[in-house]
């Protein structure tokens, strides 16, 4: 036994010694893999299995085959929820990106007034989504909130006479606005960091060549922020796909099903109707869709090539 152990030890020493320089042993990634398996892969496997069962959280799940999948395939609410999610995601990106990009570049300057103002501007970042939603719900109350006080602004057909939560278009508008209020500070922070990393020599060279502020922004800042923009957009995409808390508190997916996003519909199926089989189907669909979207974004943007924006600087 001892001899055997000795030889194996010798052999191991031989293989790990020598001049071969490579990546660390595969064993080093084991903690991460175990963690990932327990917290992500295992629950995912359970959810896939649950999607083929009927379960109301009492007793044991009963196997129903593809029944849930077939029912949901014909479910108009689910189809509409994908549309709602796409609209909310699209509006979120379109409204948040320009605002946070401009604010971020502005906040990247080292002037003291900018530091103070951006510190104030980051306050929503410190508040929980629930608190933000409750505050805006009160602020937008048709009888006591802004729509009542600012009747000259809200009292027309465009804002549905101030009954913002009663109509699909205004309800989606409110969700987009509150999302913007909540999330632009975060993305501003990302852009601020990105803008500060741009080497000053580029601007100095451009200034010598006679480029004005606008041209500098267009030909230096924007291209230099390419990777930052992609990072921010990917975060927005993933965030919107799973966004749920603001919808739960502000609109509860209403009026009708006009703000029922896919993730909120999953909650309704699971925790309101106690149909965990169907909820699991929606969960699996969300995993598939978000994986496809992030693959597309990574491929299309060339993010995976990890090309630096500072080559040759």
């Amino acid at each position, binding site marked *: 036994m001892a001899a055997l152990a000795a030889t194996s030890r010798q052999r191991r020493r031989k293989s790990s010694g020598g001049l071969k320089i490579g990546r660390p042993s595969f064993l080093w990634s084991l903690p991460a893999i175990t963690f990932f398996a327990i917290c992500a892969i295992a629950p995912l496997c*359970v959810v896939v299995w649950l999607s083929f069962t009927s379960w109301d959280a009492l007793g044991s799940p009963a196997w129903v085959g593809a029944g849930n999948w077939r029912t949901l395939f014909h479910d108009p609410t689910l189809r509409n929820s994908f549309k709602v999610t796409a609209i909310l995601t699209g509006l979120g990106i379109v409204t948040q990106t320009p605002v946070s990009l401009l604010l971020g570049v502005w906040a990247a300057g080292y002037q003291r007034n900018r530091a103070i103002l951006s510190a104030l501007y980051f306050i929503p970042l410190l508040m929980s989504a629930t608190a933000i939603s409750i505050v805006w719900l009160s602020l937008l109350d048709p009888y006591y909130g802004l729509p009542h006080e600012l009747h000259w602004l809200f009292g027309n057909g465009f804002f549905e006479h101030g009954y913002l939560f009663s109509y699909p278009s205004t309800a989606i508008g409110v969700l987009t606005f509150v999302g913007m209020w909540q999330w632009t500070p975060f993305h501003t922070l990302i852009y601020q960091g990105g803008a500060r990393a741009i080497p000053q020599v580029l601007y100095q060279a451009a200034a010598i060549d006679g480029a004005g502020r606008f041209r500098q922004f267009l030909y230096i800042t924007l291209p230099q922020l390419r990777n930052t923009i992609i990072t921010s957009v990917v975060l927005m995409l993933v965030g919107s796909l799973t966004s749920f808390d603001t919808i739960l508190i502000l609109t509860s997916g209403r009026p009708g099903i006009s703000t029922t996003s896919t993730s909120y519909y999953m909650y309704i199926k699971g925790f*309101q109707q106690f149909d965990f089989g169907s909820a699991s189907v929606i969960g699996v669909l969300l995993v598939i869709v978000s994986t496809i979207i992030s693959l597309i974004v990574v491929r299309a943007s060339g993010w995976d090539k990890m090309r630096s924006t500072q080559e040759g600087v």
Partner: protein
Amino acid sequence: MSPSRKWVRRGVVTAALALVGAALFAAFGARSSGAAQTRSNGRPANKIVVLVYGDAQNPVEQYAVNTYNKTAEGKKVKAVLETIPGANYQTKLQTLMGSSNAPDVFFNWGGGSITQFQKAGLLLPLNSFMKANPKLKSSFLPSILNAAKIGKNYYGIPMRGTQPVMLFYNKSVLAANHLTPPKTWADLLSDVAALKKGGVQVPIALGGADQWPTLMWFEYAYDRVAGPSFVTDALAGQSSLWKTAASNKALADLGQLINAGAFGPSKSWDSVYFTKNQTAQMVISGQAAFELMGSWYYSTIQSQSASFAAKSLGYTAFPSIPGGKGNLNDLAGNTENYYSVLAKTRYPQAVADFLTVMYSPTFVKKELGLGNLTTTTSTPALITGTTAPYLKYQYSLIKKAPAFQLSWDQAWPQTDSNAIHTAVAGYFDSLDAGTFETAMAGLKPAS
């Protein structure tokens, strides 16, 4: 080997390892949960868990637990009070009941809120307790005990108070417009017209964003027009009832009120919540005159303005609809809150002893002090204090009520409540009777 091939191989190995890990974890997880189950068949030793809805009324429930713990049985088996805070009690209870941590005794609303548990064999029939101690039955109003009866078995002991839905109003707004509380549907319509003329923006406040306040209007309209047997029969599976003339008439009456602008401009109600005190503010400020709400409305108003609750808050029974089958005295609302018992509780005797506290005079007095209208036969003798007129008024309503309709969303199984809420909210917005009737006829009958 090119670097990319190497990465692919590494990725495959990683994925395979992760899958093996996941499988191992699943197997291990399954085994450990199985082990926990065998252990819990013996349930925790020398303790019973009492689970209630977490809110301002918990001190009285804690008092009941303490009272029991001082008895001989309570010194052997301790009762422990646990609460689930927040509005999603039923949701959380449902997940808890399926687990090994299910409570021995738990708060519920009777009716559909416990049928699923009963069907799953999780509930203990209380008939044997009542046989051993007849007072456990005779101390409570029979109509209230019946609301937690499934088949021949009793499954609930009343533990808080009954909560009938009434029509509340702002006395000063009615007085300013020279109006009296409505007695008939025609009175209500003429009051609405007079209030609109008098500049009251929203004659009747409605928290449509919550949806369940809208349901209360249906419960009363259907009772007054089609009679109390309508819902009982529909619950028993007679889904064709929803498409009868009586059903159409009830919906048409509601439509008339909606079209008269009683609840404000169309769909405006979908922007206000009752649960966020928005409608209460409308009534207190006089922007609205009426609100149909459960008896807890008094404490909601009190929390916003104690002086308004004491001086200006009026309440009356829902008006009658002449020509309908329903009695003016019929009530709708939450019949009671109940304690139900887990079938596999380890200490049935301890639970039986704990339940006797529910009809002890000191406990009843404490519940009354909170403004809860207890449903013990001793209640009328024990009512005192500042809320006495309000409680006595309700008790008189309940005593003379020939029928007490449990809220639809609690009478039907919990899994249907979402469909009911969507249907009632949809009718108020679209006035489409066909869609509403089809949705209601599509509900699964309760057991």
